[in-house]
């Protein structure tokens, strides 16, 4: 992932309202703007702005269904963050556990 894309993701996540929007889509994927406003009690205009930022960071994707614009949470960039910064630490821990088990079992 390019550095500027990573910046966009972290900036997009660095706001409680935007994190709430993601949580709301995680609970119910494919919401319209109106649904998101009702569920989160946020003004329409600020939700629109937050959604634009999230979309620019590729954290949400939109699809049109007839005249309705539906918003979907896109976890792929977050998975890339997980792969880069979390999984490798997890692997070391798993390797350590594995060695520990092997040693114990040899006794």
């Amino acid at each position, binding site marked *: 992932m390019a550095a500027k894309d990573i910046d966009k993701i972290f900036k997009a996540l660095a706001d409680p309202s935007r994190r709430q929007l993601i949580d709301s889509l995680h609970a119910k994927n*494919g919401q319209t703007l109106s649904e998101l406003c009702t569920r989160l009690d946020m003004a329409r205009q600020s939700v629109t702005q937050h959604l634009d930022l999230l979309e620019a960071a*590729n954290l949400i*994707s939109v*699809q049109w269904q007839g005249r309705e614009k539906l918003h*979907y949470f896109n*976890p*792929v960039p*977050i998975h*890339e963050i997980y*792969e880069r910064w979390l999984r490798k630490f997890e692997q070391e821990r798993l390797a350590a556990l594995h060695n520990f088990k092997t040693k114990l079992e040899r006794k």
Partner: protein
Amino acid sequence: MNDERFVYVTYIAATAQQVWDALLKGELTRQYWGHENVSDWKPGSKWQHVADDGKRTVRLVGEVLESVPNRRLVMTWGDAVAAADKAKRSRVAIDIETVGEMVRLTVTHDELSPQMRRDITNGWPRVLSSLKSFLETGRPLNTWA
């Protein structure tokens, strides 16, 4: 089955043809997905998702609904164990669009059973991250190691 839908998007620094080939050519999918997708990719044909496990275990089966090379592929997607029950199959649409020097790859998955929902919400982010890494750096993520 419900009307829930998942939409996965990733931007890849590659051409549409490279992404298309990477999704359908066995010698490529094996490297970043640990599976091959086997079919002649003509509408109406069957396809299989085959594990690269030495035994070539068939994990998923379905039918090709639409196929426009380098652009769009739509197929049904079902557990091989329940292959006879076509009503249980979910549906996957893969769209490839060129955006500047990148390709926008969208996977839309719907008509899901609860079990398939669990499998794919774990699966697609891993597959797409690994595909992106594979095409951009030559190295897949060792997700299936």
